[in-house]
């Protein structure tokens, strides 16, 4: 978290970095629908 006078940033943004070494496909498949325990992809664990 970083804070300046008017803005507090909650996280270290890292999506760009993640693209560089990502895509290995080892993580869980994540059904998004309500009939399984769906989830937003964003709470999945990366296996790397």
């Amino acid at each position, binding site marked *: 978290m970083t804070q300046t006078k*008017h803005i*507090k940033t909650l996280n270290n943004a890292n999506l760009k970095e993640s693209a560089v*070494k990502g895509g290995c496909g080892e993580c*869980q498949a994540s059904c998004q629908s309500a009939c399984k325990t769906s*989830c937003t*992809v964003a709470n999945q664990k990366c296996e790397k």
Partner: protein
Amino acid sequence: MIHKYKLNGYNIVLDVNSGAVHIVDDLTYEILDYLDENMTKSLPDILADKLSDKYNIDDIKAIYEELYNLFEMGQLFSSDDYEQFSDMMVKAPVKAMCLNIAHDCNLRCEYCFASKGGYGGHRMLMPFEVGKKAIDFLIEHSGTRHNLELDFFGGEPLMNFDVVKQVVEYARSIEKQHNKNFRFTITTNGLLLTDDKIEFINKEMSNVVLSLDGRKNINDKLRLTLNNKGSYDAIIPKYQKLVASRGDKDYYVRGTFTKHNLDFTKDVLHMRELGFTQLSIEPVVSDPMLDFSIKQEDLPRVFEEYERLANTIIECKKNKNNFNFFHFMIDLEQGPCAIKRLRGCGCGNEYIAVTPEGDIYPCHQFVGNENYKMGNLNDGTFNTDMKEMFAKSNVYTKSDCRNCWAKFYCSGGCNANNFQYEGDILKSHKTSCELEKKRLECAIMIKAAMADFNADTNNNSVCDREDCFAECK
């Protein structure tokens, strides 16, 4: 692209392409209305023109400088450079399977998408031979992927538990020689749980999903046994037993909310009260003609309830009554890589469903739709053109998703819902989108609230909610 919104006293700004989340003051929030991807080092004239009557120009300048810094660091109005990766998964191997071990069920839940377990066809249990072929298929089609997932699904999988056990034993007997690691999961309505089954599940299944809609009267209204009785009393003790002996392995108690319980926060709290800590309640997705369906006009009420639930979760977290509500969980720091986020479930490509007859479909929700049959395990057919068609569905090929702020969290939604309600897997189902976006807004707000709370050194909180059970009071 940014998405900004006010919720619960927070002004929240999400920088879509980097994933950065900023909490800003009111003037900063207003200034952002006038800015876009084309930021320049010097203060744009428009800010002075529009805002200097109302606000001190030095404040405006100072804020602009802070914003420009973020822009320079790639945390504000950052660019979307991910489309180049969108075809990366097209040749991906199959790594996950939904094994419909039983097309039959011992409940008749009103909202069942699988036509009460039978998927619109005849009721059938999967023979072991088909299960065995499914394991062989997954090993053969998974290339170099090490972790393979297999979800026992139905219908009700416990109605065919002997075959579940045989399939697990078979997979375990050959996984090492193929350098694979099977992760089994199972979804059950609980009626047939026994001590033996609980022991097996807790040993072999990396996750178990226990269906329950919450309060007894809510659960028993739609989750009916074959003789039209409610299922609550029969399943609760079994679930409690299973969870008590599960150690720290994953499980979810999951429910469906419908128009009948738009006050579903109470159902979440009820699940917590029963001793469960891993919870999920999700909106029913059903034909709008049915009386329990969530329709467009119900959304304001659902949103209000999501906010109430989010506030309840904050209150509980502050009071160390910890539980996870699956839908509001979001990892702002790590999370999956951007490439994974371009497509959600991987259905029809990395993920497939297999029926008791050995038919292959893109996922459990396509089962029974002949146009989407991908092949059959018995005759060895597998339609790779269809696989490729599904592989190419991603947030850039779905026109609504391309410009949606939620795309890297939602990842393009559910292809099956799109097909069922919009007639096209690439056409987003509006109601689902709105629900998803509201959940994300709540999830991020919870992070903001907890960051505040944790930053405060005398952060003692006393919960005074009256609609809650008394544990933490």
